[in-house]
């Protein structure tokens, strides 16, 4: 039924997952940094973070990706030339995709982590400091674990949106699941079959993710009494 392109689709699935997970890592790093900036007392940092989140949420993923892929290479080359090297650092579609998606979702996760941080009651932090813990110890042992619990619902939502956004990376030529489906569709002239197969695979990813996050959610809130729903 898939004319032998089934294995190729599964390879694409692996690439898609790779892009999604790598982007998540970048996005989490940027999100934490952004949240820290927004919560800091320095207006310059908070302002810069504000500009970051506004810009990202104001421009479509596709446009940003095209900008990073085509424009970014030129920019990096100039930079590399400035350092005196030959003037080429490869930005292949994988890196362009991961950087763009990571950058975009870093903005959304900034809001997630900021909200989660604020949700941890200040009393916990005060108690930690009263015990003589340093600010870093309070952050590491008290605030951060609780913050993760509050961040979970929003994190899971953003993860789902992120996974779906990876489909756009196919438009800059990355050999992910969408690109493989397109190639197969173009050669066999049966687009419906392959796009439907791709849709089912995405549905599989989102379903498994929802189950996974549901489990994480229940586990992290084990100590709480949840109202019977």
């Amino acid at each position: 039924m898939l004319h032998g392109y089934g294995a190729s689709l599964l390879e694409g699935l692996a690439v898609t997952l790779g892009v999604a997970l790598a982007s998540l890592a970048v996005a989490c790093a940027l999100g934490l940094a952004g949240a820290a900036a927004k919560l800091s007392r320095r207006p310059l940092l908070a302002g810069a973070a504000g500009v970051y989140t506004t810009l990202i949420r104001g421009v479509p993923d596709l446009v940003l990706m095209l900008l990073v892929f085509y424009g970014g290479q030129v920019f990096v080359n100039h930079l590399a030339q400035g350092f005196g090297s030959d003037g080429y650092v490869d930005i292949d579609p994988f890196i362009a995709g991961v950087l763009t998606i990571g950058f975009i979702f870093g903005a959304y996760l900034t809001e997630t982590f900021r909200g989660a941080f604020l949700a941890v009651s200040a009393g916990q932090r005060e108690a930690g400091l009263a015990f003589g813990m340093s600010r870093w110890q309070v952050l590491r042992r008290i605030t951060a674990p609780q913050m993760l619990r509050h961040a979970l619902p929003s994190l899971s939502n953003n993860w789902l949106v992120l996974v779906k956004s990876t489909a756009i990376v196919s438009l800059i030529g990355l050999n992910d699941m969408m690109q493989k489906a397109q190639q197969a569709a173009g050669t066999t002239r049966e687009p419906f079959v392959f796009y439907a197969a791709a849709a089912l695979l995405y549905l599989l990813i989102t379903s498994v993710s929802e189950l996974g996050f549901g489990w994480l959610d229940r586990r992290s809130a084990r100590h709480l009494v949840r109202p019977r729903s």
Partner: protein
Amino acid sequence: MNFDAIAQNLPLYAAGALTTLKLLVIALAAGLVAAVPLAVLRSRPQRLAHGPVWLFTYAVRGTPLLVQLFLIYYGLAQFAVVRESVFWPWLSSPWFCACLAFAINTCAYTTEIVAGAIRNTPHGEIEAARALGLSAAQVMRRIVLPSAARRAIPSYGNEVILMLHGTSLASVVTLLDLTGVARDVNSRFYIPFEAFITAGALYLAITLALVGLFHAAERRWLAHLAPRR
């Protein structure tokens, strides 16, 4: 940076922005109109009522918009029975296909947003309505839906912005929206930075205008929930 070519092509960009807005309005209107009855069904306790709607929103929200667009535009055209049907004049048009895909997508998300708002109606309002002798249909029409509409404004505003970003995918099925214009300009003059930054700036302007609109709506219709001054 050479913005001369951009300046020459500004009318093209303006036409692209207009196309983007047209796509957005049509998709949102169609999606919203369909979403309200679906949301009512979705919020009912009976399996037969909320089941099919849940399946619809699950499938549409679990797959990328790009896949949905390709399925409708390229996928359906694969079948001779579709090409010879009475629907073909519609389905052969990229405009119709794009609007259909966008409308279905926003309908699913809006259904969930409105259903959630309906479910969150304060029970006291419903009790009062029943006590006054209103029928179930009247309760829904006069009390629950207007109340839910207000509650849904922040989430719906978010959805509108996301749909604006979604319309950039219309360029993938040959439509000359803002992103499509930027890609054509880039392919003619080889100026990726300038072409995509201009598109990005225009998207940002539209986004900020929409955000302002929704803030005004919130101030007016959710004034009762605002912090007291």
